[in-house]
């Protein structure tokens, strides 16, 4: 049983009172105020659809920790988010029969309910009186704060609803920090005797953490390289090496400019980047294919640059599977590089022995060696941005080495989803040597010094 009532009417009257109080001021911003852990907050009234009271939410399994459940609002099922839990504030249990105060918000197209401690009233403001956010004011992550305003004798922290609830990124970040906090609690909650050691260890860890966080931020700024679970292991491994290298050269450990970032990332790139694949890389790639029983290979190779990777893949497949149907779509968003790809030629010294003896390369008129037309015909080179959709058919293999690390969390997730969608069931995804996928739906397989991921969709 639950009851709902909308007290918009009473709010309207309070609103006009508040308005009268500040007669002289220009009022161009109205906020609904509420309290949370004894602090006063406001939300732009434009995103508040209504307010209500309810209890007995239907629990849904496998939802983020801050989701209280779902609720039937006049026939519409809306998610209910517990704001205290979301911002890691201490939770208070409601007394039996006590209804939760809910702000019903409309964010973009969706409607959600947010449980707060108490809903106060509506206050009209002159938006120029809103002060910019200050990091010391509140427990809530700074970037979710629109500003601070003092009205009457109270300070209100105005939250940015679109930022918190609007995009999945905001929610994902909150989710992550929640998990970290849980993990922290578990590790620091050890036995009392271990406490001292733990404290020392923690201080050390903090130091490392700070360097790590700084590097993480600057990599994103200078190289658009986003550190997360797909490549964090490599960055952690690289950091001590980098530090000793920089200290030996009496240089700053931190990345000060794009050149530093490039230098830091130099060992990140996979084997044979920008050149034809050598024997070891060929053997590794073929070892991943041994589990795939196919006689047709449709391959997509995003980020192919000047095409060495795509040509290598086509030639290796052609030699290993002489009777198979092979088609390689290769793309890059660098127009100059990809335009050069179809007529790319190589110096004799840069061509691995197995490739020159395959009969697929011939001396070009302008010097250097090119692939023969019979092999070139297996490839399509496209000027394409992988963030845009494309008209690819169902693929058997995607070779996307060192691509996803250069997209932020949201785009990365979208890309992986796109890979999974385009790849047939059991299809193979090859990422960079230093990239791993933990997302569900990908089964890791080990080959010779190389790992791949099979698409587990049914």
């Amino acid at each position, binding site marked *: 049983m639950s009851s709902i009532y909308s007290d918009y009417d009473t709010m309207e009257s309070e609103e006009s009172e508040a308005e009268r109080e500040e007669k002289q001021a220009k009022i161009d911003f109205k906020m609904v105020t509420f309290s949370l852990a004894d602090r006063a907050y406001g939300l732009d009234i434009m995103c508040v659809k209504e307010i209500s009271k309810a209890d007995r939410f239907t629990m849904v399994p496998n939802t983020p920790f801050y989701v209280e459940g779902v609720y039937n609002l006049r026939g519409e099922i809306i998610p209910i988010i517990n704001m205290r839990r979301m911002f890691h504030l201490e939770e208070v249990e409601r007394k039996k029969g006590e209804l939760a105060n809910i702000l019903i918000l409309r964010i973009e197209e969706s409607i959600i309910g947010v449980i707060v401690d108490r809903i106060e009233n509506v206050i009209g403001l002159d938006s120029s009186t809103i002060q910019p956010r200050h990091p010391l004011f509140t427990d809530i992550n700074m970037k979710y704060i629109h500003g601070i305003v003092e009205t009457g004798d109270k300070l209100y922290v105005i939250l940015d609803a679109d930022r918190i609830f609007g995009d999945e990124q905001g929610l994902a970040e909150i989710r992550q920090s929640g998990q970290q906090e849980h993990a922290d609690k578990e590790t620091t909650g050890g036995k009392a005797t271990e406490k001292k050691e733990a404290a020392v260890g923690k201080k050390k860890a903090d130091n490392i953490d700070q360097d790590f966080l700084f590097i993480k931020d600057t990599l994103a700024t200078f190289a658009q390289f986003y550190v997360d679970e797909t490549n964090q292991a490599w960055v952690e491994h690289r950091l001590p090496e980098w530090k000793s290298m920089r200290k030996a050269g009496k240089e700053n450990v931190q990345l000060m400019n794009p050149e530093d970032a490039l230098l830091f990332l130099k060992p990140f790139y996979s084997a044979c980047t920008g050149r034809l694949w050598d024997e070891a890389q060929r053997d590794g790639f073929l070892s991943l294919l041994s589990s795939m029983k196919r006689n047709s290979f449709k391959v997509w190779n995003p980020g192919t640059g000047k095409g060495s990777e795509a040509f290598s893949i086509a030639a290796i497949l052609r030699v290993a599977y002489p009777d198979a149907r092979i088609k390689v779509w290769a793309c890059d*968003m660098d*127009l100059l590089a*990809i*335009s050069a*790809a*179809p007529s790319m030629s190589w110096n004799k010294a840069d061509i691995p022995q197995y490739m020159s003896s395959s009969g697929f390369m011939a001396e070009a008129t302008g010097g250097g060696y090119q692939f023969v037309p019979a092999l070139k015909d297996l490839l*399509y*080179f*496209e*000027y*394409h*941005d992988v*963030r*845009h*959709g*494309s*008209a690819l*058919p169902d693929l058997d293999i995607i070779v996307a080495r060192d691509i996803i690390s250069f997209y932020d969390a949201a785009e990365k997730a979208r890309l992986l989803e796109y890979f999974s969608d385009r790849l047939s069931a059991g299809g193979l995804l090859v990422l960079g040597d230093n990239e791993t996928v933990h997302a569900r739906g990908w089964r890791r397989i080990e080959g010779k010094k190389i790992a791949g991921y099979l698409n587990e969709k049914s």
Partner: protein
Amino acid sequence: MRVEYINPFVEAAFSVLKEVLRIEIKRGELYLKSVSQPVLGVTAIVGLAGDVEGRVLFDMGEATAIKIASAMNGELMKKFDDLAKATITELANMITAQAVTKLHELGFEFDLTPPAIFTGDNMEVTDTGIEALIVPIEMEFGKIEINVAIREKN
């Protein structure tokens, strides 16, 4: 979009415009777009069929369109009337046809559909599941954006 298709369109636009308008023409940086985008007011469209499917849009402001039509007809036009529309349509046809001829020489089979022209304010164009190559062209009459979206038939 396949890299082989890019140059024929850029070259055709450049040489046709230069020939019919006889003025200085500059090419801007090429880029890709996939979301809906506003169009400038006068848009000619030519469809492509054959080995591929797609279309080419020629997008410009009305003032630019009138200046181009005036230059092509050798008389000063004040309104964007039927003659002006027919002129812009013909320009779109000439550029696309020349690009398709170049592609034909490279071994690609393309067919053209008859061009059409759209005029109006606050229009936008959306392509779903296909990205468009934008070739911006700058000249003293204003700018033309040539928007090419082609995909392979699978």
